[in-house]
């Protein structure tokens, strides 16, 4: 998780399927309008189900929301991963 939080995708212990999902997540984050049906088909071929793909998009968009707010307010880093219990 630490590797991911520092952008070192190659060092994160990910299955091929998880790596494909995170590649897709990057595209959704940076240019969702450019994602294609083929992008989604690749995920299906890695075994991801439609509900899992949809949920990945929800989490991706939700964290874009939190990231924008956190950066706009300029709150100091508090190790969101440790304090990730927004609520238990």
């Amino acid at each position, binding site marked *: 998780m630490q590797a991911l939080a520092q952008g070192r995708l190659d060092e994160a212990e990910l299955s091929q399927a998880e790596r494909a999902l995170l590649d897709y997540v990057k595209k959704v984050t940076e240019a969702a309008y450019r994602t294609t049906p083929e992008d989604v088909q690749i995920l299906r071929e890695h075994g991801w189900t439609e509900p899992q793909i949809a949920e990945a998009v929800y989490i991706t968009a939700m964290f874009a929301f939190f*990231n924008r707010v956190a950066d706009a307010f300029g709150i100091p880093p508090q190790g969101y991963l440790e304090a990730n219990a927004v609520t238990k």
Partner: protein
Amino acid sequence: MADGDTKIRLIEDADATGDVAAVYDEWRQKSGRQKMPGILKCFSHRPDFLRDVMKFSDTVHFSEGHLSRRQKEAIASWVSWLNRCPY
């Protein structure tokens, strides 16, 4: 940079009153922690919205769903780095 030095002022734990104090207390009871996370205090100007934010993040992120909690955390970490968000 203590929490107090944010670009946009937010309501600190000690200054919360009324509905903001109520929502903060709800979170403390539910999480078992005392200090409000900075990200939640960002929503202190709309405590009603803060309740919604806590609810939907609880629903989709902090619960089992179609993806495992580990996979969701991986997405969260990766997205936050992509968005250059140190939080």
